[in-house]
């Protein structure tokens, strides 16, 4: 992490204002790193889970798993620039990144041919993500408007993902229809320079 910039230009105003509002920047960096780590590795594990959505039952959920998979990747893309803005960074070694992720690895279940077991893994991953971004929202509300806006947008999509998987598991209506296209990210798309969308 480069620190000598302060000698040249002083502290970034974007950091100064959140510190004055009571944000512990080091704590926020850790929360964001845990959050983007969870998204990055969820994207990875969802790829494996989606590959195993097979047969008639699996085919029925494959596209919705894909929607969640790509949107989780978008969440990583949306928040990582903010991590760097506040002086944080991604670990140089991806293994270290995995160990710091805010959510457990969403491993393929042993009995993956039972689609319900895959759905339970997906659901728990979304629930952890909601809690994780909820922590960021709680910590930044009224103190760090920029981080809050991104985390709040991500959380909205995570809550929708949870509702999708609950509906598939229990038939409880989610209130949603599927996305217009894969990776739509209706809440997050305006954040983090998601130019590939």
């Amino acid at each position: 992490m480069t620190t000598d910039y302060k000698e040249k230009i002083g502290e970034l105003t974007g950091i100064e204002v959140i510190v004055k509002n009571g944000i512990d920047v080091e704590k926020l960096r850790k929360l964001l790193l845990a959050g983007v780590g969870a998204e990055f590795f969820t994207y990875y594990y969802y790829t494996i889970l989606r590959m195993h959505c097979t047969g008639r039952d699996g085919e029925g959920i494959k596209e919705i798993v894909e929607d969640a998979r790509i949107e989780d990747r978008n969440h990583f893309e949306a928040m990582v620039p903010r991590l760097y803005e506040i002086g944080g960074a991604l670990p140089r070694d991806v293994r270290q990144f995995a160990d710091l992720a805010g959510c457990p690895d969403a491993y393929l279940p042993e009995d993956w041919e039972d689609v319900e077991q895959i759905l339970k893994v997906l659901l728990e991953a979304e629930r952890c993500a909601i809690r994780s971004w909820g922590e960021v929202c709680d910590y930044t509300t009224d103190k760090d408007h920029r981080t809050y806006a991104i985390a709040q947008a991500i959380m909205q999509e995570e809550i929708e993902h949870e509702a999708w998987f609950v509906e598939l598991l229990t038939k409880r209506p989610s209130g949603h229809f599927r996305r217009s296209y894969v990776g739509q990210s209706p809440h997050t798309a305006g954040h983090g320079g998601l130019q590939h969308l």
Partner: protein
Amino acid sequence: MFKVCNVSDIKENSLNKFTIEKKDILVGKRNGKFFACDNSCPHRGASLHKGVYKENNVVCYMHNYEFDVVTGKLTNMKSWKKSDTWIEQNPAWRESGDLIMYEIEIKQNQVYVKIPPNQ
């Protein structure tokens, strides 16, 4: 020492968050005894005041890690997937420190907490 609140503000079996000198601390009362610690879970930083008690432990709502509120020690890490533990996860991911405990004192119906300057 920092004055935090009145004794009557801390109910038995409650978990209460206070912000002292920009630091979030947890003050609770379990089995008639007051305790104070950093409000961040040492595992991944979740807010411990959102957790619940189980015996003499506070259980973090994020990953169900359990910490003894007297000693601060990590005592259990229950997984949603397997009933006993997060054993299926990578050991490095499971790793966690103990709670950062703070000295607490009751004087004239007021709760005081000592937070070392380096924390």
